[in-house]
């Protein structure tokens, strides 16, 4: 029997598989398909303080082994989340992590301050990297100073551990990860989606209502893996790997390059049972390779 649990230091997970924000709703949507208690963690959809209307459709454009989205973080806001969603999540034993959004630093702090009271929330994931936050994919995670300032404010406000979710749309992601670490982030998760564009050649129009969107899915996995490897080698805080994980073997690649845990995103849309299947496949691999603890795989990439 393999020990699948991973210790992030600030949070112990029963296995390294978290459901990624924005692809798993508020968790409840998947209760018909997945035993939520079996997951490593659930990162709920990004929350601004107030309800958020989101972007005009079309919001999705499928590409080769990928998906570009411009949902625009439509959501219900913190009040409705606490009143309507959290009570329904009381039953699950799985850590609930809230993905925190804001128009400005102060809104991130306001969301955290409001949610600090909620015992059920295990940690916050600071979403400073969604390319649909502002026009042209602008977001705080594109810049070390902006990252530092927002993480520091969030850390001062938060009574929970903080995971900073990074953008791949930068020249040097290691620099941004270090800024988050220096500002007190307890972990970093990467990568968010790649700023992308798809065109309909018949109409010569963008395939998304908002022109640009964020690319996710298997198409981005090698890019994400490279970044996770670089960041894991450069920071001391735990790294959570994200990017096109569809199978247990995909997840293992991220663990091998240094991620302590992974987030499964787009796969949830394709197969609502993906998280559970991936956990099973990781376990099968460990059993086959006679690995007693999944943590023993982390950061074991062999480079001569």
């Amino acid at each position, binding site marked *: 029997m393999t020990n699948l649990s991973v210790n992030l230091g600030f949070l112990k997970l029963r296995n390294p598989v978290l459901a990624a924000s924005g692809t798993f709703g508020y968790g409840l949507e998947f209760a018909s398909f997945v035993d939520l208690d079996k997951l490593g963690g659930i990162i709920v959809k990004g929350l601004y303080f107030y309800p958020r209307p989101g972007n005009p459709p079309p919001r999705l454009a499928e590409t080769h082994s990928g998906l570009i989205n411009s949902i625009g973080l439509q959501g219900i806001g913190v009040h409705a989340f606490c009143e309507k969603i959290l009570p329904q999540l009381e039953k699950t034993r799985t850590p609930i992590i809230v993905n925190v959004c804001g128009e400005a630093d102060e809104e991130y702090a306001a969301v955290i301050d409001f949610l600090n009271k909620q015992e059920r929330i295990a940690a916050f994931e600071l979403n400073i990297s969604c390319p649909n936050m502002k026009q042209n994919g602008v977001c705080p995670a594109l810049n070390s100073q902006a990252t530092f300032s927002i993480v520091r404010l969030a850390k001062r406000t938060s009574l929970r551990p903080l995971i900073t979710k990074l953008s791949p749309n930068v020249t040097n992601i290691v620099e941004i990860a270090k800024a988050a670490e220096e500002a007190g982030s307890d972990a970093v998760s990467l990568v968010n989606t790649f700023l992308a564009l798809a065109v309909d050649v018949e109409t010569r129009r963008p395939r998304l209502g908002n022109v640009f969107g964020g690319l996710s899915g298997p198409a981005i996995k090698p890019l994400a893996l490279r970044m996770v490897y670089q960041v894991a080698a450069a920071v001391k805080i735990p790294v959570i790997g994200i990017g096109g994980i569809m199978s247990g073997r995909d997840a293992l690649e991220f663990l091998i390059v240094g991620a302590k845990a992974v987030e499964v995103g787009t796969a949830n849309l*394709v197969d609502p049972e993906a998280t559970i299947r991936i956990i099973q496949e990781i376990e099968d691999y460990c059993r086959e390779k006679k690995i007693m603890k999944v943590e023993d795989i982390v950061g074991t990439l062999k480079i001569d």
Partner: protein
Amino acid sequence: MLKDARARIIHKESWKNYHLLGIETPRIAREAQPGQFLMVRVNSQLYPLLRRPFSIHAREEDAVEIFFVKTGIGTAILAEKKAEESLDIIGPLGKGFTVEESLKGKTACLIGGGRGIAPIYFLAQELRSRDIHPKIFYGGKTAADLPLLPKFEAAGFEILSSTDDGSFGFRGLVSELLKEELERSRPAHIYACGPEPMMKTITTLADARNVPAQFSLESIMGCGIGACWGCVKRIKRGDRAEWVKICEEGPVFYGPEIVWEGKEP
């Protein structure tokens, strides 16, 4: 909401670009309501990545049917499937057509434009079983775009058809054919599925005559289960219009709720 990763294709019919698959999936079939849909994974590869949404076209015992047009990569792969192959499906999803008790003994007009005819058959079956008379209006560009006409007739449904080019039935849009009908008599309810301009026209016709009308909307979908918020349409909620997930709160909405061609939030 159920997943059946090994739903067996039990029969298939094809007419040029139109295809109909019968899929054995007992638990999903048992729960299915008219107007609900399935998310179908067309292969186990990573391209195309997403499932495709299809209205449930009919239910027969332990099976459901889907009816679709080959329009892109997903439907092209699906069109190549043969009987005895299996499909990975999720369903039944969404909120289907509401059938009010007060319709009993009355007539409802059901309008299907092009592939929008898909959910109309299941609805017609349901209405008939509840002692409501479905009068069906089936529109297509040409006679070749009305492949399901014999099926409706064989099942004994009253059906009128139209083609844009006049190659069969009424010459013109199916909404114009409906308009003629509405000048003769007033149905107790209208149900429609088809291109948005058609449904928009029907909304106006129904409103002018104070006939309640429901419409089944279509969208690109990510998950089909309300998680990704990718399939929104502009829907009135109270005195405001919002982007509403059609996979979860729809795909069927009442006419007055829908903001046709809604672009701005």
